[in-house]
């Protein structure tokens, strides 16, 4: 399996990369961990004219606290994230999700920036970022802008990222005390991507849900926030019966995906099951 030929550039700063992206023309692509792009290029489903390799930019790979948020450089690998003490102490769901992405080798190379830019409908990070109320910072020829994760994913492999822009950072607010998070996943058995992935960030006290954000992946053609589900459980006691009842609205009104691993009604059923499991796990 051999990709088509392309030109290769390796910038050392983000600005340089933006410039190269402009100069290299329409068919140029950014290369981060390469774990979505290179497989597609090998199968010639994607044949960029040039690759701009972000791995030479040292300033894109960091995980640090900035005020009341955790800032993750776009070129941080999945492994960097699950291995980070900062993430481990505040964002259980990110560890749970990250350690279920692909396999050791994929996690050593794949990056969070690449994952969200690629916006595979079955990718794990998007659900977490939505539930965690993360924001995504992008830089392009016209400067820097930030978009909330829940507004970032717009469709199948389609995001708010505009031509010429580079994702530079993902910023996740440090959850308030008393908040717990969880990510549960039903794997597509062959690829191990998500058939359903459900991320929950929830504050509860005395066994009652105070506030909650839910993100889903795998269920529909893009990751989404499920406010109906949030509304159905917010303020309620987190009893098995209540959670079960609330989970019945999961993914309501969404266009549910169907394939030979999971038809639409089974997938919808799984969304409900995993919604309940995620809520319990975050209780």
């Amino acid at each position, binding site marked *: *399996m051999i990709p088509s*030929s392309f030109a*290769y550039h390796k910038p050392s700063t983000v600005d340089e990369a933006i410039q190269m992206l402009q100069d290299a023309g329409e068919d140029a692509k950014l290369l981060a961990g390469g774990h979505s792009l290179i497989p597609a290029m*090998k199968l010639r489903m994607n044949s960029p004219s040039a690759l701009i390799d972000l*791995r030479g930019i040292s300033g894109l790979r960091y995980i640090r606290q900035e005020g009341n948020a955790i800032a993750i450089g776009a070129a941080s690998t999945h492994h960097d994230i699950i291995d980070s003490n900062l993430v481990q102490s505040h964002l259980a769901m990110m560890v749970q999700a990250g350690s279920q992405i*692909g396999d050791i*080798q994929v996690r*050593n190379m794949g990056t969070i920036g690449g994952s969200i830019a690629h916006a595979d409908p079955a990718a794990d990070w998007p659900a977490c970022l939505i539930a965690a109320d993360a924001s995504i910072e992008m830089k392009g020829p016209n400067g820097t802008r930030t978009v909330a994760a829940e507004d970032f994913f717009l469709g199948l492999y389609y995001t708010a990222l505009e031509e010429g822009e580079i994702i530079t950072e993902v910023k996740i607010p440090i959850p308030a005390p008393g908040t717990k998070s969880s990510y549960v996943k039903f794997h597509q058995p062959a690829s191990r991507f998500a058939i359903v992935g459900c991320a929950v960030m929830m504050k509860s006290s005395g066994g009652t849900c105070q506030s909650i954000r839910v993100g889903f992946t795998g269920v529909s053609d893009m990751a989404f926030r499920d406010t109906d589900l949030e509304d159905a459980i917010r303020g309620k006691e987190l009893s098995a019966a209540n959670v079960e009842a609330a989970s019945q609205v999961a993914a309501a009104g969404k266009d549910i995906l169907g394939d030979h691993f999971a038809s639409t009604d089974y997938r919808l059923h799984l969304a409900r099951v995993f919604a309940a499991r995620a809520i319990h796990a975050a209780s």
Partner: protein
Amino acid sequence: MGISIEVNVNGEKRHSEVDARLLLVHYLRDTLGLTGTHVGCDTSNCGACTVLVDGKAVKSCTMLAVQANGAEVKTIEGMAENGELHPLQSSFKEAHGLQCGFCTPGMIMTAANLLERNSNPSEEEIRHALEGNFCRCTGYHNIVKAIQLAAQQLT
């Protein structure tokens, strides 16, 4: 065409001019003749091509040779030191962790990364760590045993 790279492979500095599209696995196999690293798929699933890049397990079929510029790459050929087998190598033999041997180099490289991060993994952790490595011969039973054995020997 013709990007100049320098890669430290198994402790030896190699300078090469490569095509941008050359995959690391083809660089290792075809350019350097290190055929211990295998290709078993074209979708980055099977792990037969796994090598260590700067100490981390990587599927060399999903990395460009140019991305390895400046890196340290270790392949199965570099696992034995001073003529002595790495404990993972000897334990794969000891526990009959291989049959046809095609998946074995990748298994060993992934296991090396696992043991580096977790010196005493449980059976479940080992099985989880092998998610990206397929074996059609052994049913994984003895591969798990081999990694357990190596873990004991390494600690």
